[in-house]
């Protein structure tokens, strides 16, 4: 095994990241290579210091806000809350539908005196228009689903690092 490969494998220090065979090969290399042994000791020290570094405490208010959000989310899950949410989300569409139904009624009264053929055509057209309006309202209206977290992984703008690979 070459040092370059050994250095790469030194990074893979979690269980299951190397096969037993890879591990044995690395150990054999380390037994013969002082440079790689020193590298391992150095990285272990550095990573241990990084892991042991103290963190500033999390503000109690932050934690409280998270818990409040959790409580609200649980409360909103109740069946009545869900019904209220659906109604409030679709309120504009429902109101528009009600107005359109009133218009249909009005139209029907207004066209009562016309001949049957005229009445049929006119009402058909109006009903078609109403249907289109309702369809547009349903598709443009706010959905009841929440947006899901971004599926595509964003990347950092301008990658300045050399992307060469170490093996």
């Amino acid at each position, binding site marked *: 095994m070459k040092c370059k490969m050994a*250095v*790469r494998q030194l*990074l*893979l220090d*979690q269980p*299951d*990241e190397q096969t037993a065979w890879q591990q044995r090969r690395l150990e054999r290399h380390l037994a013969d290579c002082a*440079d790689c042994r*020193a*590298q391992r*000791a*150095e*990285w272990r*020290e*550095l*990573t*241990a*210091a*990084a*892991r*042991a*570094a*103290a*963190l*500033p405490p*999390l*503000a109690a208010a*932050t*934690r409280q*806000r*998270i*818990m409040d*959000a*959790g*409580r609200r*989310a*649980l409360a909103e*899950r109740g069946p009545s809350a869900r019904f209220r949410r659906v109604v409030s989300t679709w309120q504009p569409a429902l109101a528009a539908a009600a107005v359109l139904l009133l218009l249909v009624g009005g139209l029907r009264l207004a066209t009562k005196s016309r001949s049957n053929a005229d009445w049929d055509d006119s009402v058909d057209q109006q009903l078609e228009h109403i249907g289109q309006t309702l369809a547009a309202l349903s598709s443009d209206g706010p959905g009841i689903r*929440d947006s*899901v*977290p*971004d599926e*595509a*992984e*964003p*990347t*950092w*703008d*301008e*990658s*300045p*690092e*050399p*992307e*060469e*690979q*170490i*093996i």
Partner: protein
Amino acid sequence: MGQPAKKWIAAYRQGDIEALGCLVEYYRRPLFGFILRMTTSVADAEDIFQEVWFRAIRHLDSYREKNFLSWLFRIARNLVIDRARHAKPRVHLADAEAAAEPTPWEARIPFRGPGPDRLAQGHDLGPRIAAALQRLPPEQREVFAMRMEGGLPFKEIARLQATSINTVLARMHYALIKLRQELKKDYEDFSGVRT
């Protein structure tokens, strides 16, 4: 995901608010640690930490992944990247490029640090590591933080960064080399040993 986390998620889904408290506490160190490494102020980190949980709570019902911490990291990194894009001034490409260049011959010289004994005696390199990390390119810092704070497998980090495992290993390698260079002086002062 560890068993306790699975249990707490299920309990919270069934209405147990205390289970959410357990989850937040259990993942506080890795998640807050990761966010702190990726932001420039504690206030920003707190904001993002809170927002991660708000989003997690909203989507917990649809959560199906195996690694809960990885899922939290994914939400966090989206928020961090989003915030970085809107922040000014931006890091100049040339500066970042200079920061990313390792010095191979120097990097191969092992340094004799203070050792675990001296670290245990109260010599905390943490703040200096944190400062040195801020000078790394974000991709490298991110790999280092996910690994150090969350112990994520490199395979998982590669998935989150949407890149190959070799690239992730290279990023970790450069991060360690750069940190070692940055901290060389500290180690010398610390142990009185010249490398």
